[in-house]
């Protein structure tokens, strides 16, 4: 990595960041993508993506993301598999802390996406990877003939529950309300699946195990007010996402949930030269194609911004 001031640094490597990288690389801006350790973004944790145009038979999420990464690299984008931990947007030259080192740039694209929300209950962190997971498609195979619980009521909860029935003997779908948010089609699939039992009006209070692996959940029926122990070997979280924007602190305007605000144009934040793309701004569409589209817009806005400086 050179010590010069970069024309543009892209933070994040999901569809938004990598699309921006492809555009900025082709524009000869020699972009640096600070990709993160878990690079590739959310689609790295899914199986078939069937709604990304150009793949009539669908494509595996991780393969799609490696294609985007390799395409960005082939056009000359430089990739750093590290996290940005701190930013300083106070001057004309933006400063980023990457693994203890400072990187300077005239412009920045924030494309850091979002991460699964946690329940924040006892046992959840202790048993992470030992029965607690947020990715059925990654870890499902470990639950052959086992009993698992999926927590949530949206599309992704339905999807995870259905997917897990490929392996598990029984899937509890635990939801804190008495109806799902998920689309009708997804709900129908769940109701038709004999292996899935829905537990309505139920919240999880604690994840329990034998110190090595999860063996049960402490749950409460919120209507009856009754608590009980539910024997399961695994718990999969599907209760939404939170933006990965904590490290931005107060350097850029964010809403009360942490999503980065667009204040003018289509991708401009409140800081000149700092642009945003994908799920870290957009909590409405949250799709790979819209994230990629916004990545393209941010890249073109960067090009225009840099020209305006000359």
């Amino acid at each position, binding site marked *: 990595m050179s010590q010069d001031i970069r024309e543009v640094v892209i933070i994040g490597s999901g569809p938004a960041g990598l699309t921006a990288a492809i555009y900025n690389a082709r524009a000869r801006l020699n972009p640096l993508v600070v990709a993160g350790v*878990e690079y590739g973004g959310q689609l790295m944790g899914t199986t078939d993506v069937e709604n990304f145009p150009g793949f009539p038979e669908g494509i*595996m999420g991780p393969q799609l993301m490696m294609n985007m990464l390799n395409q960005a690299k082939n056009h000359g984008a430089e990739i750093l598999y590290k996290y940005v931990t701190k930013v300083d947007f106070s001057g004309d030259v933006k400063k980023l802390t990457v693994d203890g080192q400072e990187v300077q740039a005239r412009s920045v694209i924030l494309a850091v996406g979002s991460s699964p929300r946690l329940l924040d209950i006892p046992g959840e962190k202790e048993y992470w990877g*030992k029965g607690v997971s947020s990715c059925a*498609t990654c*870890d499902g195979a470990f639950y052959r003939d086992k009993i698992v619980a999926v927590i949530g009521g949206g599309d992704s909860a339905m999807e995870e529950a259905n997917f897990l029935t490929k392996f598990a003997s029984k899937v509890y779908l635990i939801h804190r309300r008495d109806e799902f948010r998920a689309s009708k089609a997804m709900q129908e699939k769940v109701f038709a699946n004999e292996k899935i039992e829905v537990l309505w009006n139920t919240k999880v209070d604690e994840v329990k195990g034998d110190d090595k692996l999860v063996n049960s959940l402490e749950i409460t029926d919120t209507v009856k007010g009754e608590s009980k122990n539910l024997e399961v070997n695994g718990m999969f979280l599907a209760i939404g996402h939170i933006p990965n924007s904590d490290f931005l602190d107060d350097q850029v305007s964010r809403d009360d949930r942490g999503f980065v605000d667009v204040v003018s144009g289509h991708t401009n934040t409140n800081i000149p030269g700092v642009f945003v793309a994908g799920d870290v701004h957009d909590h409405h569409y949250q799709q790979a194609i819209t994230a990629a589209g916004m990545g393209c817009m941010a890249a073109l806005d960067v090009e225009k911004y840099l020209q305006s400086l000359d």
Partner: protein
Amino acid sequence: MFKIYSTAWCGDCVRIKNFLLEFGMTNGDGYEEIDIDQNPEAADYVMEVNGGNKSVPTIVFEDGTSLTEPSVIELEDKLEELNLIKN
């Protein structure tokens, strides 16, 4: 040859394999890939070597050491330590 225990849909596995490609390593040439979905007994083995952790990829080296879900930086360091790649 070291072994990568993986599944077809595991993103971390694809990420690692794409990274190894940078060093010219592919399945059968540099490492051996074992799909635990096709080999149920391999899933038990994975849990054995990584302290009960149900996670892929788990990478087992010839000297008996293993890495579970390593970052590509950790993997690169390990491969250098074992002289499998040059810095």
